[in-house]
């Protein structure tokens, strides 16, 4: 894209490899952020569109996939904020219809099922589910460092914070994750016994 934006290069096998690599990385990151394959695909498409639109802002000294991940992260934060603004409602306020007993009966729960078919191992299912419970900044730091293999510095650039903040978020994220995983595993064992 910005690395190879001439029409001559856009059809070459190198360009195709680059596109595939960036798309794979972006898709994995989006999948861990959103927890949903369909949403992840939409996010990746949107991120690529933004990257293409602002290709003159790309710094060629940095990897292209890191830049796309940064765009992806910003897009996700914006989407979350928009969603929260539009859907925020007090649970104490009366429900829209008289037949419904409370807001919790109307509001949808977390959407977990669309990705289940992709998860091959029990570990992946549990860790993925646990990741979805983490606050966004912890989830992002843990995903980028431990799953995507990025450095503290790269994560700092993607998340727009310093290395100290990155290590703190990573630590908090892992501690929380450990608690959630052990809870989920206990719950799973109880369910299996029953």
């Amino acid at each position: 894209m910005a690395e190879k934006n001439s029409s001559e290069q856009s059809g070459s096998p190198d360009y195709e490899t680059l596109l595939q690599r960036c798309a794979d990385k972006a898709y994995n990151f989006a999948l861990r952020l959103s927890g949903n394959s369909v949403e992840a695909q939409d996010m990746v498409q949107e991120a690529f569109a933004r990257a293409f639109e602002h290709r003159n802002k790309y710094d060629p000294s940095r990897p292209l996939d890191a830049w796309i991940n940064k765009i992806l992260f910003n897009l996700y934060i914006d989407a979350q904020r928009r969603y929260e603004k539009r859907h925020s409602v007090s649970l104490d306020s009366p429900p829209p219809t008289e037949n419904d007993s409370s807001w919790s009966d109307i509001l949808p729960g977390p959407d977990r099922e669309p990705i289940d078919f992709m998860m091959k191992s029990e570990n992946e299912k549990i860790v993925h589910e646990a990741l979805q419970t983490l606050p966004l900044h912890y989830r992002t730091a843990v995903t980028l460092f431990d799953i995507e293999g990025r450095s503290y510095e790269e994560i700092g650039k993607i998340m727009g914070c310093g290395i100290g903040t990155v290590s703190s978020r990573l630590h908090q994220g892992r501690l929380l994750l450990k608690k959630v995983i052990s809870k989920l595993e206990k719950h799973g064992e109880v369910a299996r016994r029953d």
Partner: protein
Amino acid sequence: MTEHIDAIQLSRYVDGEIPRDAQDAVEQHLLDCVLCAEQMQGLRDTKLRLVSMPHHVAPAELMRKLKGRYMKPSWSHRIRIWFTPSQVWKPVGALAAVAAAMALWVLTASHEPDVVSLAPLVAAHSRYEAESLVPSGDILSSDYSAQLAAYHAQIR
């Protein structure tokens, strides 16, 4: 025993993100402090579970859309593809070669009927006739065998 290791420092140690001398100090402390060693092991186990998460490939549908949008091949590339022998071009080339050979044969072959010279045949017939070898009239009634015997005797 020295003070417990700072939690974030321990996390950085697990990530291999602290300088060599600090790393030695942490390792020395972990030998003596069960609490810090347990905490470190917990962090390491969680990290291992995360590291072992598989990487998914972008779905084919997504790739199709991205390639369709960001991979418009150049004209020179398209032309190169057209002139690269491929699975389609090979049979097309073979058919074209056969068609060319047939066209060449049709164009070069003469459409006039062959003119066969009858002169040698006529000459031979005349010679046989002169030597009375060609039976005349009814072949059954003619004394063909006697004539043939006479001819043999003559040439001997």
